[in-house]
């Protein structure tokens, strides 16, 4: 059900052109935050207006679109954004990572490896990795221009001296192709190593009016020290539904006795594994048929 009262993918063509220019500039200067004239969208700031604008400027009528939030296709905001594009762009949608041309995500990178013909669009709340060290934009822009990232290393060092480890578990800063320090959006640091990927990665921050990008096969290094190397961590369990030991897990509290289960945060990955016959501790052989 396409809504004829709006242009394809909601935004007018001029606006999409302006956003595409920002995306191209971002791809040309990997990790650099490009200011763009973010529009007011019909969903609130903080709900993914940046990602939605980037997706709107990226989608073509032939594309298949996937939206995930926390790795899952059926979380409420993922449903809401998917419906928005079904309505305003009439594009095909999918929950299967491999079938999507454009994937908009909040807080996760899919477990399945992405391909060269795919685009991953991140929703970004605070694009500036230095923001919590220096609240002023005028200062942080200068710091990026001068490649002055000492403050960030001092912060990581202070973490180690206080906690014995780098106490950042998500939105873990990365250095892009040896130049810009970049916020990977609030993905768990487990996902950081995946960012060196064949797909294009685009980052949209609507409220903060910034777009940045990582071209395919760009070198992404999570900041660390020689004696305290970066470590991608996850819950030390296997998925209780599909048995995977390599996927990022959500912890679900089952009862007031402290019983928990761990399940894949990437629902499509978990579903496809179970479809292929993998069974975890609490999964059952025929559960997919039962729920279908």
């Amino acid at each position, binding site marked *: 059900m396409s809504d004829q009262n*709006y242009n394809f993918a*909601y935004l*007018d063509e001029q606006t999409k052109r302006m956003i595409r220019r920002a995306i191209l500039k971002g791809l040309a200067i990997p990790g650099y935050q490009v*200011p*763009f*004239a*973010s*529009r*007011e*969208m*019909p969903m*609130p*700031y*903080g*709900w993914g*207006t940046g990602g939605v604008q980037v997706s709107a400027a990226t989608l073509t009528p032939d594309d298949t679109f996937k939206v995930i*939030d*926390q*790795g*899952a296709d*059926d*979380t*409420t*905001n993922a*449903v*809401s954004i998917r*419906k928005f594009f079904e309505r305003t762009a009439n594009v095909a949608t999918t929950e299967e990572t491999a079938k999507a041309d454009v994937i908009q995500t909040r*807080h*996760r990178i899919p477990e399945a490896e992405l391909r060269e013909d795919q685009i991953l669009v991140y929703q970004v*709340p605070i694009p500036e990795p230095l923001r919590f060290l220096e609240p*002023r*934009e*005028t200062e942080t822009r200068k710091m990026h221009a001068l490649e002055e990232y000492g403050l960030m290393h001092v912060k990581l060092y202070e973490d180690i001296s206080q*906690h*014995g*480890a780098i106490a950042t*578990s*998500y939105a873990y800063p990365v250095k892009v192709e040896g130049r810009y320090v970049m916020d990977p959006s*609030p*993905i*768990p640091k*487990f996902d950081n190593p995946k960012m060196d990927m064949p797909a294009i990665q685009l980052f949209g921050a609507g*409220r903060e*009016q*910034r777009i940045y990008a990582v071209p395919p096969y760009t070198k992404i290094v999570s900041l660390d020290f020689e004696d305290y190397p970066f470590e991608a*961590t*996850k*819950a030390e369990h296997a998925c209780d539904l599909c048995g995977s030991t390599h996927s*990022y*897990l*959500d*912890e*679900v509290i*089952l009862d007031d006795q402290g019983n928990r*289960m761990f*399940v894949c*945060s990437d*629902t499509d990955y978990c579903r496809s594994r179970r479809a292929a016959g993998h069974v975890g501790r*609490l999964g059952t052989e025929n559960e997919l048929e039962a*729920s279908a």
Partner: protein
Amino acid sequence: MYVAVKGGERAIDNAHAWLAEERRGDTSVAELSTDQIREQLSLAVNRVMAEGSLYDPDLAALAIKQSRGDLIEAIFLIRAYRTTLPRFGASLPVETADMACDRRISATFKDVPGGQVLGPTFDYTHRLLDFKLAADGEVAPAATSEPRTEPTPHVTGFLGQDGLIQDETPSDETPRDITREPMSYPADRATRLQNLTRGDEGFILSLAYSTQRGYARNHAFVGELRIGKVAVEMEIPELGFAIEIGEMELTECETVNQFAGSKTEPPQFTRGYGLVMGQTERKAIAMALVDRALRWKELGEDFLGAAAQDEEFVLSHSDNIQATGFLEHIKLPHYVDFQAELELVRKLRAEAEQNVATKEAAE
């Protein structure tokens, strides 16, 4: 067993249906019409127009109805609608000197050419609940007289004649459009004023109040406050001249502030300026005070570290749609990030406990 949240789509649909029902309220009570909102809740309509940056009382009334009276939500609806409207041109600057004033007061002079006109103000009402309104809101018509036809010159103009107040440098430069260009710092005054006029009334009010209480105090007098209708004119390229395309109600406030001056420069009063759509007096006065506080550099004052002087702080936090969006988004799921934090805290705790155990064993 599968306990992870499923069925987001149905949950959303049901939530929306319930919301619509709650909005309507008890169906045995007559439904509110948007005409009633526009006419009888006009100050709410004005605020929504001002902060929504769209002058359309009917749409603002609709937004208030749809938002159940949540004005920030109504402003959001207007903003989201506004952003889809095509831009076919820009009006000429409005002439507030030619305003047909409903209200016009000066706090700096007992009387001024054009007179002190109180207009429809709450100022001297006693804030006593009028229980008659609960039963019957009909009122007798107010007294009328012939509208004045002579112009109402700006009060600050009289001070300017004697050089007592600092001149504003005129400029024909097209101001930036903050809805079409990303904000960058430092921002010029036109940009700052645009930001302030659509900024949240409560935020601007509190900042202005903070200057009065000593955080970058600037001793503001309300030189003039005027509310009324101005003509909106636009040059039509095909015609080659400007025609009036409508009129809008505005509130304008000019403050007269403490004088600057040095041994070589004679002291002069300085200005703050507020201009807001509709009858929005509190906002216009507050805007003028904050505008004045933000001008410290240009007027050769010291930065005192006050919030109202800090351009980046003020301009990047004034927008209530941005603020409420980012604030409320923390209720969206964050369990992936929380899980990462949980693992980290568990790991750090385990290490700390182990350190204690090793230490005790050694002792």
